[in-house]
C-alpha cells in the first residue's frame, strides 16, 4: 500500500513524517522559551538536561521515560496515559531524534503496565521504544532516576552515587536522558505549538472532588482547591507534592504554588491524630529505604522505634530527621524528613516558643530542630 509521494510510504505516514519534521524545528529553543521544568518533582530545567545529554560525546545514547509513579497521592501520570498517550510517545520520539539516541525505555509500574500495555504497543508500533515493566517489589526507591537505571540494567535497585550524572553516565555508562512522563507530554505540546503553561494536579485526601485536573501551572494551592471545589469548610492542613515526601502546609500557607509532583492532599485536622500521621510517614520510609546509607537505613528504623515508645524522645527524633536531610545518600532520605518536619513546624508548633503541642499527649518539648520549613 503506497499512495504517497515516496515509495513504500503511505500517505498517512508521509503526513506524519512531514509534521514530525516541522515539530522538530528549533525544539530546544521552543523548550527554553516555554521554560519547561521536569515534572517528576525536582523541577530541573528541561532545556539544561536535554542540552547536557546532547553535548555528551558517546557512541550510544538512551532515553528513559519514567512512569514509576510510586509517590502515594500522585496519579497524574496514569491520567495522562489514559487521555494523552500519543503525545507522550511523540515526546519520546522527539527526544530520540534530537539526541540521535539509539533506544528508549518506557519504564512503567506493573499496575499501569497490566492495564495499558496493549494500547501502548499499538501506539509505539516499530519505534525503538522498549516497555520496561517495573517490578512491584522494587518499591518506591525504584522511581528515583538512578535506581530506575539500575533496575533496567538488572542490578540491585538502589540509587547510584552522583556525580557522574545520568546525562553523561546513564544506562550501561552511556549518556541517558531520563524524564518524567509528563515532561515528555509537555515537550510534545511545545513542539506542536500547543503548550499552554498548564500542568496536572492530583487532588486527594479529605475532599469531595478527588481526581486529576489540568490547570495553569501558576495557580496557588488555594486557587486549585477553590477551582476544583475542594476548599474545605473544616479545620484542615494540606500536603503538597506527594503523600510521603510532600511538604505540609497549614491553612494560612496556601498562597504558594504547588511544588514537586503537584499533588494536593487535604487532611482534616480532627480526623488525623498527630502521632499516627508522623508514625505512618516514618514507617513508610523505613519500609522503602534501600538500606544503602546509614542515616536512611538506620535513621528511619530508629525513628519508628522512638515514635513507638511510650515516652517519645523528641530531641532524638529531631536529630535523626536532621541527619536524614543533611547526610543522606539520595533524595529519599532527604524526603523522609520533609513531611514530619514541616508538619511539626507548620501544624503542631505554637509559633511563639517553638513548643510542640500534641493534642491528647502530655509530651511537650522545646526544640528548634524543626524550624527548617
Amino acid at each position, binding site marked *: 500500500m503506497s499512495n504517497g509521494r515516496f515509495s513504500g510510504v503511505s500517505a498517512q505516514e508521509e503526513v506524519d513524517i512531514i509534521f514530525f519534521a516541522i515539530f522538530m524545528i528549533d525544539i530546544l529553543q521552543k523548550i527554553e522559551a516555554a521554560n519547561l521544568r521536569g515534572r517528576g518533582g525536582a523541577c530541573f530545567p528541561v532545556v539544561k538536561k536535554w542540552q547536557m545529554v546532547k553535548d555528551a560525546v558517546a557512541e550510544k545514547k538512551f532515553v528513559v521515560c519514567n512512569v514509576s509513579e510510586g509517590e502515594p497521592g500522585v496519579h497524574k501520570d496514569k491520567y495522562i496515559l489514559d487521555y494523552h498517550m500519543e503525545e507522550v510517545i511523540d515526546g519520546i520520539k522527539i527526544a530520540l531524534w534530537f539526541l540521535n539516541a539509539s533506544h528508549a525505555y518506557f519504564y512503567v509500574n506493573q499496575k499501569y503496565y497490566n492495564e495499558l500495555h496493549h494500547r501502548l504497543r499499538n501506539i509505539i508500533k516499530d519505534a525503538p521504544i522498549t516497555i520496561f515493566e517495573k517490578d512491584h517489589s522494587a518499591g518506591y526507591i525504584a522511581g528515583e532516576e538512578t535506581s530506575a537505571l539500575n533496575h533496567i540494567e538488572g542490578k540491585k535497585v538502589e540509587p547510584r552515587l552522583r556525580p557522574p550524572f545520568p546525562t553523561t553516565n546513564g544506562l550501561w555508562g552511556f549518556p541517558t536522558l531520563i524524564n518524567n512522563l509528563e515532561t515528555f507530554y509537555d515537550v510534545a505540546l511545545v513542539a506542536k505549538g500547543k503548550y499552554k503553561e498548564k500542568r496536572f494536579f492530583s487532588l486527594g485526601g479529605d475532599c469531595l472532588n478527588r481526581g486529576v485536573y489540568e490547570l495553569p501551572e501558576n495557580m496557588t494551592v488555594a486557587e486549585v482547591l477553590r477551582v476544583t471545589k475542594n476548599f474545605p469548610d473544616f479545620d484542615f492542613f494540606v500536603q503538597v507534592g506527594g503523600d510521603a515526601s510532600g511538604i505540609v502546609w497549614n491553612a494560612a500557607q496556601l498562597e504558594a504554588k504547588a511544588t514537586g509532583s503537584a499533588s494536593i492532599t487535604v487532611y482534616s485536622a480532627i480526623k488525623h491524630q498527630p502521632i499516627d500521621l508522623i508514625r505512618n510517614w516514618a514507617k513508610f520510609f523505613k519500609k522503602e529505604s534501600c*538500606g544503602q*546509607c546509614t542515616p536512611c537505613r*538506620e535513621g528511619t528504623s530508629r525513628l519508628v*522505634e522512638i515514635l513507638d515508645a511510650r515516652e517519645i524522645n523528641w530531641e532524638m527524633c529531631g536529630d535523626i530527621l*536532621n541527619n536524614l536531610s543533611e547526610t543522606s545518600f539520595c533524595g529519599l532520605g532527604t524526603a523522609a524528613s520533609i513531611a514530619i518536619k514541616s508538619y511539626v513546624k507548620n501544624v503542631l508548633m505554637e509559633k511563639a516558643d517553638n513548643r510542640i503541642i500534641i493534642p491528647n499527649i502530655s509530651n511537650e518539648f522545646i526544640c528548634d530542630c524543626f524550624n527548617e520549613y
Partner: protein
Amino acid sequence: MASIKIKINGSEVTCEEGTTILQAAKSIGVDIPALCQHDDFPPKANCRVCVVEILGRKCLQTSCSTKAEEGMDIITDSAKVQKARAMNLELIFAEHIEKCGLCIWRFQCKLLKFASKYKLKLTRFEDRKGKRKTYKFANAVEIDGTQCIDCRNCIEACSVLQNINYLEMSGKGTNQEIVPTSDKTKHCILCGQCALHCPVSSAQEQAHYGEVEKLIKDENVIVVAQFAPSVRVSIGEDFGLAPGTNVTGQMVASLRKLGFDYVFDVNFGADVTTMVEAAELIDRIKNKGVLPMATSCCPAWVNYVEFYRPDLIPNLTTSRSPHIHSGGIIKTYWAQAKGIDPKKIKVISIMPCTAKKYEASRKEMKVAGNLPVDLVLTTRELSFMIKKNYIDLAKMPIEKADDPISEYSGAAAIYGASGGVMESALRTAQYMLCQSSENNLCDARIDFKEVRGVEGLKEATVNLAGLDVKVAVVNGIGNIEKVLDKIDDYHYIEVMSCPGGCIGGGGQPIPTNWEIRKKRAEGLYGHDKNCTIRKAHENKGVIGTLDWLKEKGHKLEHGVLHTKNKQKFKY
C-alpha cells in the same frame, strides 16, 4: 593535571584536580573519620561519617566522594558537622554488637577510637543485630552478621577486586545482610580479602590464638612458631613502624617472649620449595610433562583450581608450600636430630593468609600420621597476642631464629611479593640447567625484574641456559582470566590470589592498600639484595636436609616434599 586552591578549616591548600576532599585534608594533616572508604575501591559513600560542610552547599557532603573544586571553602569540624557525624556513628555503633573482649581487632578498632574521640553516647539505641548469623567458610574465614555495619567493603573485595563474587547482599533496608551466594557454582577460595577490607572486623579470620595460648601453657608439648617471608615486613605497622620495615629480629624476640619454645623461619622452607619446584619445572620441560606448570604455594589459588578448574590440577606443581615443607622437616629431620617424639611437637605458622589455615588442615598433608603444621595464625592474630601481653614489638631486641631452620637465601625472602616465587625458581632452574648442559650459555643472572611489580598480569620470555621459558605472573586472582584464556602459551605461571602477593594477603595488617603493598614489597626486595646468598641452591642447610630426606627413602622424601590435589565440591 592542573592544580587548584581550596580552603580547609581556613587554611589554604593546593591540590591536584580530581583530588577528593578527604585526600586533600589528609595532605595537610586534617583527619576526617571514614569507615566505608577504602583506597582499593571507588568511593561508595554509604557510611556518611566523613561528611563536611562546604560553604554555599545546602547539605553536608561526603568528603570521600566529593572532589575538590577551585575556591571551595570547607569546614571539617564545625558544630553542625560534629553533631551529624556523631549521630551517624552512633547509628552505626548500634548495628555492631561489641564483642571487644574476644575481638582480635580491639587494639586498633576504628569504632572504639571514634567513640572516644567524638564522645559518643553508645547506649542511646538498642543493638539491633543480636540475632544475626555468623557464616563460616571452612576453618579460615567468617562473616559475623552481628558486627556488620553494612559498608559493603567485603562485597567489593570479593567482586571488584577478586572477581570471585561469592558474597552478596540480600534483603533491603534494615533487613539487608551479607550472605554467601545461593549460586551453587560459586565457591569461597578463602583468600580473606573480605577480612582485609572490613573496617569493623565483621569479616575476619577464624581466630585460633586461643588454642595456641593453651598449647603454650601445656608443658607436655614443644610449641614451635614459624613465620612466613612476608610477615616480617608488615607486622611492624601494627606497632607504629613504617610499612616495609624488616622486623624479623624483633618478631623472633616477641615470639620467644610469648612462650614459644622454638622459633623458625619459613624462609628456610621457601628455599626447599624453590629446589623442588625448579627441578620439577625442568623435568616437565625436558620430558614433555604437563605444561604450563603452575605454582601451588598460594592455597587460595589451589582452592580456585580444585573448585573451578579441576582440569588444571595436573598443571599444579606437586611441590608443597614453604610452611608445609618446613613443618614436615621440623617433625622429621629436626625431631630426630633433637630426639623428640614428633607427636609432642606443635607447629604454629604465622602467615599473612587466611587460606593457609585450611591448607594446613588438609588430610593429604600428613607425614607419617602427623600434620606438618598444627595451627595457623594470621599476622593480625600475632599482633593481637603480642599487644595483649603488653609487649611492644618495636622496642624488642633483635634475636635470631633457631638453627638449623633459620638459614635462607634472598630468593626465599622475596616469596612474599607477587613474582617472587617465580623469580626464585628461575634463579635455581637456571643453575640446574647449567649444571646438566654441555654448553656454557648460562649467565649468572640473579634478578628477573620482568616478573616484579604491581601490574595485574606480568608476562615475559626468559632465557635459561639457552632454553626460552615463557612465563606469566598473575598478581591477584581477579586477573586470572587473562591467563586462563591463553594458558597454552606458557611454560610456567605463578598465581597469587591476593593483590601484591602475600604482602597483600588476607591476614595482613589493616589497612592494606597499594601504597602500603608497594612499600612491603620494596622491603622484601631490599632484603634480598642484602642477603649474602641470593639463590636457594646455595642454602647449605636446605641441601643437607634434602640429602637427609633422600637417604631416608622415597616414601618419606615424597611425603615431606610433594602433595596431590583433586576436584573439590565443598570444604
